[in-house]
């Protein structure tokens, strides 16, 4: 039993189970792989890499809220060359597929990043982060505009034969339009959602808590938004959708799969428990075995309007 996250790439991104670590949940992957042993996630999406080094946002960068996590890292990373220099040897040794997330201010940046990664032998795929936001530099993420998202996807697609996942922001009027555009532009899969813009106040209520004022909200609080977006876009595109947002238990994974996702990504919960993505993946396989499901595709989309009446086997939930 396995899942193909890039069906158009002849099995180039085939994973053992549908629970991935989403960008931000495991750094560049190696820190997590060092501790989890054989309880591995299906794949690891690295934190976003940019062409040049970025210092990141000023602290404080994270606020732990009652039902979520507000963070504003600002794409801190040492730049593509330094990342490849430091990480590529360890990626080569990894048994877990490594998907490198890239983010750029311009289409040229994205093309250059994708081209450079195309040369790397040990990368399983690329995630184009269209939700990345460096508040000091750009006004809005590329995924906010349908045309920009499309052009960025075309640029990445033209530069690489690797499986290409495109990550979309949720704070857009119509996620379906953006999803349709990037799928038509050559994305092999779509991942959603990225953290939602949000605000927390400091203790004295005299200013915003985070150094950059706004941050991205993730964790259990955003799960209903993630479900909504996955539900919407999986009805309008034919590429796999990777659902992200507030997953911390097997029930959350099943919710996303039923809402139309082919796989799921975890970040916030993986920060607290690096074993969790691998464990939930194994739990899901057990759950399928227990329910007589032998193809994971059977799980996907049973809550979607078009498929609801097909007589799913999972009445016993």
């Amino acid at each position, binding site marked *: 039993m396995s899942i193909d996250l890039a069906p158009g790439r002849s099995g180039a991104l085939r994973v053992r189970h549908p629970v991935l670590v989403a960008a931000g949940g495991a750094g560049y992957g190696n820190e997590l792989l060092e501790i989890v042993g054989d309880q591995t996630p299906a794949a690891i999406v690295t934190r976003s890499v940019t062409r040049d080094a970025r210092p990141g946002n000023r602290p404080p960068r994270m606020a732990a809220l009652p039902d979520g996590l507000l*963070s504003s890292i600002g794409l801190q990373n040492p730049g593509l060359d330094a990342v490849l220099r430091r990480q590529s040897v360890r990626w080569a040794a990894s048994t877990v597929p490594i998907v490198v997330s890239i983010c750029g201010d311009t289409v040229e940046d994205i093309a250059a990043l994708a081209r450079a990664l195309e040369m790397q032998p040990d990368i399983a795929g690329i995630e184009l982060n269209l939700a990345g936001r460096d508040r000091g530099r750009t006004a809005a993420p590329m995924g906010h505009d349908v045309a920009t998202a499309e052009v960025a996807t075309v640029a990445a697609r033209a530069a690489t034969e690797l499986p290409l996942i495109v990550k979309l922001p949720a704070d857009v009027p119509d996620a379906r339009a953006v999803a349709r555009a990037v799928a038509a532009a050559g994305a092999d899969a779509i991942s959603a959602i990225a953290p939602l813009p949000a605000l927390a106040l400091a203790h004295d209520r005299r200013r915003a808590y985070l150094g950059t004022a706004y941050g991205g909200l993730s964790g259990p609080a955003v799960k209903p938004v993630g479900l909504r977006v996955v539900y919407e876009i999986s009805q309008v595109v034919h590429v796999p959708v990777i659902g992200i947002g507030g997953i911390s238990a097997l029930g959350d994974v099943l919710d996303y799969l039923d809402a139309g996702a082919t796989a799921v990504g975890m970040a916030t919960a993986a920060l607290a428990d690096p074993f969790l993505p691998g464990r939930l993946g194994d739990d899901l396989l057990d759950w399928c075995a227990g329910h007589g499901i032998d193809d994971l595709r059977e799980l996907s989309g049973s809550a979607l309007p078009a498929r609801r009446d097909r007589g799913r086997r999972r009445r016993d939930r």
Partner: protein
Amino acid sequence: MPLRPTTGRLATSAPNRSRGEEVSLLERREVLPGRYLLTWAAPDIARRVQPGQFIHVVAPRRPGLLLPAIPVAGFDRAAGRVSLLLADGADGAAAAAGLTALRAGDEAAFEGPLGRGFEVDARSRFLLVVADGEGIAHVRACVDEAVASGRQVTLLLGVAKVSQVLPSSLLPDEAEYVVATTDGSLGHHGSVIDLVARYEAWADQCFAAGSEALLARLAGLARGRDARMGVARLRRKRGRRTEATKAAARRRAWLQVALPHDAGCALGVCLGCVTDGADGPARVCREGPAFAVDELRWAADR
């Protein structure tokens, strides 16, 4: 059957035992109104912990959220015990809520010790420990460790009023303990920083934690002291700096401060706990929480 939204809670997953040490609560004391000293049997953490380090509470906690980080406020290596000083309510409420409600005999799981603790230079004989407010939890273990290693130690504590003063019974008899209160209800009337001047010349090293204002003023004071004594600044030093020379300079630094680890993974991957370091962003969970004064960029440097 009425339709209800699924909560997503289908908990089939066995709790993960491969992370964290199982610990049991030996004693829970309300040392001040709303403040608890929890003593745990945690032999593995007690064996390895250094003053200034922290632990992550793996259990009990709510799923899906970050692990609460709590500084180790004291330890007894021989008896295999660590103690935590927690405030119930206000800041750190989420952390405290899960632990302060426990009773003696209850179990929990801690991951740790995490981060880099304070490092005492082998030649230092006289140690000054300074804290205000919640900072005491970060430096309290320094006092124990100093006394255990035969050093002389003075603790300067600043709080708002007498009802917040940590009882001296919670400190070793050998330590000198001086208190400042903002309202003058006990000890020095004013800020704890006013007391530092009296001990500055006496102390070989100083360890501090607490409010940003306190740490910034101490940093200014340490800079002035270093200038007078002709100590080169860590980051201004010429020549090649290796990890070994950095570590040595850090150990010799007159002032080391512990920063709170507010939120993050403590694995070094989330970059959420980053603070302004002299050489760029520094992770509190890895490069800290204890920093030599010149490893950080202070407001005065900007």
